[in-house]
């Protein structure tokens, strides 16, 4: 089936540094999302993105977070600066966007460890 790729699978970074998480969504999809899962907890919505713009973001999407998809390349989540509480697995997802409600396809996640 359609695959969303996330690279790398694990990143370790020092607190205060910048990190960029990369996502290669399904090729013909139009909507893109980031979700955050702290170890042992449920997945939580961060942000969605369509037509070059953030459509909706949650309280978890702090000012230090930003997303972009320059020229149809990777859909990225940038955290600058990172904090200890940003340690989590970040999942990217995409959906076709042709209908009002549809399946989201998730990547396998990037585990971010902030030291």
């Amino acid at each position, binding site marked *: 089936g359609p695959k969303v790729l996330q690279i790398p699978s694990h990143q370790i970074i020092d607190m205060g540094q910048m990190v960029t998480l990369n996502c290669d969504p399904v090729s013909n999809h139009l909507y893109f999302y980031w979700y955050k899962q702290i170890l042992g907890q*449920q*997945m*939580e919505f961060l942000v969605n993105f369509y037509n070059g713009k953030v459509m909706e973001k949650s309280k978890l999407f702090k000012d230090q977070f930003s997303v972009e998809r320059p020229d149809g390349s990777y859909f990225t989540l940038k955290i600058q600066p990172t904090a200890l509480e940003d340690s989590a697995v970040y999942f990217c997802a995409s959906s076709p966007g042709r209908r*009002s409600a549809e399946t*989201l396809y998730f990547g*396998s996640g990037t585990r971010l460890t902030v030291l």
Partner: protein
Amino acid sequence: GDQVEQSPSALSLHEGTDSALRCNFTTTMRSVQWFRQNSRGSLISLFYLASGTKENGRLKSAFDSKERRYSTLHIRDAQLEDSGTYFCAATNTGANTGKLTFGHGTILRVHP
């Protein structure tokens, strides 16, 4: 408060048995999606439902079409490879924003 209440939180099954997972919603939901997360963390979509039931092999899911306040996932003839964490996720928004609210998950272990 939580909008998605998932039960049970953990489940242990013998191979070959049947069971059901359930998600209750504290508000009317538009659609529900069920996922299995494997030991590597990958999230696999099992079902998407806006109403009614869907079946795929030994798995069957239903979404209460009247009240839209709960969904179930039935596992028939459980196999070892069914082990993993199962999540339901629902959306209550009219337009597709992809803002899914996830349950806390059911950790399923199937043993011989």
